[in-house]
């Protein structure tokens, strides 16, 4: 029988760490450690699938749309930035739902973090950093594919990366706030069906919102996705945006700020009793 060394002492050893500085970085590092183990599975949904959409819709449907010639540029080039933004939007949504519910409910990893010096806001911050990584990487990967397909018409296309990060945090934080309140996951499927899919279909990813009836158009204007699509498309095509880029940025930033504040409150509530 081996004798293991003393794991802790009566005197209370000098702290292993320096002064207590709670930060979101250890949470991000934890999530990243888990991602390194499981990244292969995510490549399909956040990369291969959107590229299939691009090829399928852009080239096939595009060949009919382009005959009419009403867009001013190839349909492939039109939907590619839309698909980039909608991919970022869906990655942000997905990462804010089941994995977060697992942290609160199933794995209870957030409760383990809470027992350490970390504060609920650090846990939220770590989640947002991780979502940025996932959404940013998906957006960047898609941009490379777009370039290979020759759909990028402006050096401004690089702006899609910061736009993706802004869109990701604007879409993720309200969902994070919601995920911190639930007791079971039944609503996620409903949210996906009634928010994510309609947003993807009607927020100018595949066709301009002007095609929508006026009432539905306003719903598109409210969704962060439409603003993200406008900015992304303007960046890759080198065209102007619907409202002027500043307004789209302000709108997304407002979603992000309000979403973060509510999410922080809900994380605090959920992890304090």
């Amino acid at each position: 029988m081996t004798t293991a060394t003393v794991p802790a002492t009566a005197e209370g050893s000098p702290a292993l760490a320096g002064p207590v500085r709670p930060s979101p970085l250890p949470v991000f590092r934890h999530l990243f450690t888990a991602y390194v183990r499981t990244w292969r599975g995510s490549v399909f949904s956040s990369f291969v699938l959107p590229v299939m959409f691009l090829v399928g819709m852009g080239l096939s449907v595009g060949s009919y749309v382009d005959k009419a010639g009403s867009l001013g540029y190839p349909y492939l080039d039109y939907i590619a930035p839309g698909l980039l933004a909608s991919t970022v939007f869906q990655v942000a949504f997905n990462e804010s739902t089941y994995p977060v519910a697992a942290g609160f409910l199933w794995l209870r990893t957030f409760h383990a973090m809470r027992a350490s010096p970390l504060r609920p806001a650090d846990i939220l911050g770590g989640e947002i950093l991780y979502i940025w990584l996932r959404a940013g990487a998906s957006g960047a990967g898609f941009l490379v594919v777009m370039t290979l397909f020759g759909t990028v018409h402006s050096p401004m296309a690089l702006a899609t990366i910061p736009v993706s990060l802004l869109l990701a945090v604007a879409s993720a934080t309200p969902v994070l706030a919601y995920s911190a309140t639930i007791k079971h996951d039944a609503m996620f499927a409903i949210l996906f069906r009634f928010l994510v899919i309609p947003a993807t279909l009607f927020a100018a990813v595949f066709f301009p919102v002007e095609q929508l009836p006026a009432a539905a158009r306003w719903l598109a204007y409210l969704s962060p996705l439409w603003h993200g699509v406008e900015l992304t498309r303007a960046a890759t095509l080198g065209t102007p945006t619907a409202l002027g880029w500043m307004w789209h940025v302000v709108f997304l930033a407002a979603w992000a700020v309000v979403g973060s504040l509510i999410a922080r409150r809900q994380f605090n509530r959920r992890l304090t009793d």
Partner: protein
Amino acid sequence: MAEEPLIHARGLVKRFGEVRGRAKRGREVFTAVDGIDVDVQRGESFGFLGPNGAGKSSTMRMIGCVSPPSAGTLRILGLDPIHDGPRIRARLGVCPQQDSLDLDLSVTENLLVYAGYFGIPRAMARPRAAELLEFVQLTDRANDRVEPLSGGMKRRLTIARALVNEPDLVLLDEPTTGLDPQARHLVWERLFRLKQRGVTLVLTTHYMDEAEQLCDRLVVMDKGRIVAEGSPRSLIEAHSTREVLELRFGGEALEPLAGKLAGIGERVEVLPDRILVYADDGDAATAAVHQRGLAPSSVLVRRSSLEDVFLKLTGRTLVEEKG
């Protein structure tokens, strides 16, 4: 010698279902902890013993600085849990009742990411993790994913995780609940070793044998209050007799039989499936039972335990009767 206790509580109260002292609309206020006084000194092994719902876990969560007290005084490591939560938690080791390991990560990765929460650099965390895995006898599983591990292994890993920051105070909420007897003994043995090394342990349990083995001192809790305090031995001496006679009578109704036992020993308790006779001399009491012409189907003489203390103090058993 006047060192401040690691835990100091006076009139500590936890109520649920209220906001800023007022009942939430449509919710009844529930008092989980109802004014308890506790002091835990460095190097002690201290226990909260009580049935489910006694307020043990609520107390532990207040001590763990994740649940603000509703009233009363609470100081942990000489600090205020409301204002110094992160500073206190940096020096606590918490083993929660429900597992909270990341099942997708390996055993070692779980320790490394957890060390990260405390700001411990990887270079320091690696040897520390290896040392702790040795201590909880999981070295051979160090690189395995956590998910397929047995319940006992997961619990041992959780205990190792709680030690990663070399805590001043280790909190264990029901450390062996849900484990099979063999796994439980292995956990007890590890915790006993920690205790021997002078680590301050605070644990909750509803198993009297766990409390007897691990606690220098304990409080018995019932319905949010402390009903007795002392070492396991002193509690037994103060609240029970030296021995207990357990009588079973097949299918017979026990209440009428209890009347016939009156006067034997100090006290008679009727449980759903058996009668307990409290007497300092169990054999003499057995003889007295037979003298009265009673024929129990089984007779067992045993020493008094904390279970008997609890029964005496609350009129109820700690663990649900299995019948």
